[in-house]
């Protein structure tokens, strides 16, 4: 009750000073978030030498991140590849060279959609689970207990997850690329207004693409995946309150991850050009 009486001082301030403050508050919160993520990253990095003896946790996280996300990445990538082939075939029907469909699907998947799809699904499946688990550990004082035991949460909970996502993102992305390419090939063969043979579809891909395009996508995927896991860990660990706040943290973790993926996508794409 008495806590509420501490609010009025803020309201007493003049409208002139409070309006600009309202405007900058979102920016401040973004900066705060970036700051606390970087602090968590540094703290986790300090414990890198302990990684070999946390091998069990690393493998467990690889399983959770990789194995559980793989099927859904495959399904989605198949349809993304198919739809890319369909749309470009539709466009090419009027202006000509249909064999470039292979190149178009190949490049889009490798450089853009493979890594983005893998990261988006990672945010939905793994990021939400991480945020929920760590938020619940925080709310039920398990994080406090770890701290009194002098076991840094960054070492035991964050570091193995960051290492695991770095190991698994290339796997997820290559899976996504391959399945997307094959989805495109199947659609290209069996759609009546396209109907190009897989051989010629893959031939243009081989001719005009090189491993650099795939590598470019892998670099992006590593950056997105790492950022998603770091942000979700940070949001989970900074949860305060009760069960409702656990839910709010999960939502915030997923939404922040999705925004972050798209914002990073622009800057990383530009930087890699």
């Amino acid at each position: 009750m008495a806590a509420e009486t501490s609010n009025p001082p803020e309201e007493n301030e003049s409208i002139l000073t409070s309006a600009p403050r309202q405007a900058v508050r979102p920016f401040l919160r973004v900066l705060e978030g970036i700051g606390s993520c970087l602090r968590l990253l540094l703290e986790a990095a300090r414990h890198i030498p302990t990684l070999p003896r946390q091998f069990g946790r690393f493998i467990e996280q690889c399983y959770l991140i990789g194995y559980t996300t793989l099927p859904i990445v495959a399904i989605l990538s198949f349809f993304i590849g198919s739809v890319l082939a369909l749309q470009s075939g539709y466009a090419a029907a009027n202006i000509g060279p249909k064999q470039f469909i292979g190149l178009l699907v190949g490049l889009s998947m490798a450089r853009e959609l493979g890594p983005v799809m893998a990261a988006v699904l990672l945010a939905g499946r793994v990021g939400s689970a991480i945020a929920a688990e760590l938020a619940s550990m925080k709310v039920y004082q398990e994080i406090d207990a770890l701290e009194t035991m002098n076991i840094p949460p960054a070492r035991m909970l964050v570091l193995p997850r960051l290492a695991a996502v770095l190991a698994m993102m290339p796997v997820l992305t290559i899976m996504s690329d391959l399945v997307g390419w094959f989805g495109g090939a199947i659609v290209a063969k069996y759609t009546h207004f396209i109907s190009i043979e897989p051989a010629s579809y893959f031939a243009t891909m081989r001719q005009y693409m090189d491993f650099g395009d795939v590598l470019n996508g892998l670099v992006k995927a590593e950056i997105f995946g790492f950022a998603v896991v770091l942000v979700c860990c940070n949001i989970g660990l900074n949860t305060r309150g009760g069960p409702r706040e656990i839910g709010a943290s999960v939502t915030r973790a997923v939404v922040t991850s999705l925004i972050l993926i798209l914002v990073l996508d622009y800057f990383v794409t530009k930087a890699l050009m």
Partner: protein
Amino acid sequence: MNPSASVTSPRQGSAAVGVSVEGLSKDFSGFPVLRGISLTVNPGEIFVLMGPSGSGKSVLLKHVVGLERPSAGRVLVDGHDAADPATRGRVRMALVFQAGALFNSMTVYDNLALYPREHRLGTEAAIRDKVMRSLQMLSLENAAGKVPAELSGGMRKRVAIARALVMEPQLMLYDEPTSELDPVMSATISEVIATLREQYHVTSIVVSHDRDLALGIADRVGILMGGRLVSLGPPADLRAPSDPRVADFLNPSIDLRNPRFRRLAG
């Protein structure tokens, strides 16, 4: 169950540590919870802290382990500032949380084994030994494979105590260790606390409303009310408290004609 069949092997560098609380104040968003508390707990002492619900006992314990930062004043553990995270590396201390704070995704066994494993205190076999002895002390052998969700409230409390014992701390903080236990188990906990002091010179701060515990094992008893320490002395003082508030807290009369909740409302 005989507490002298100890959990602990002789430990290295386990000089007893003292705690001194100096003018400690804490407020949460302007609402004062602790208001200038000063007290010293001597090395090897068993200090019992009592006080009404909401008087700030748990908050005080959290300051001692460095989970809360003081608004004013400070807490020293063995001469080191408790708010400094490095203090946890210098002094082994364990807090038995009021709600247990067990790791819900781990079995009871793994809850206990986590500390020695993470700090690499011996082989897996030695850790197993230590964990099983600690579970036996609290009659929990059969719960080793269960996860916290499968335990009763009192069992959870005992697992929390067993987990703290495995840490072989120099300073033990208990937040209401006997509140959910039956009388025999409560007596066992009192015996465990006293034995740790006898054999290993462990300093203990026990938040408890258990008068048998206070009279049986405490060296001194402090009473916290409204964020202030209103009474501090040997447990015998509890029998004849001088402060009327303390007297009413310790021996509340049940008056059906003029019940407390009406008195407060009116």
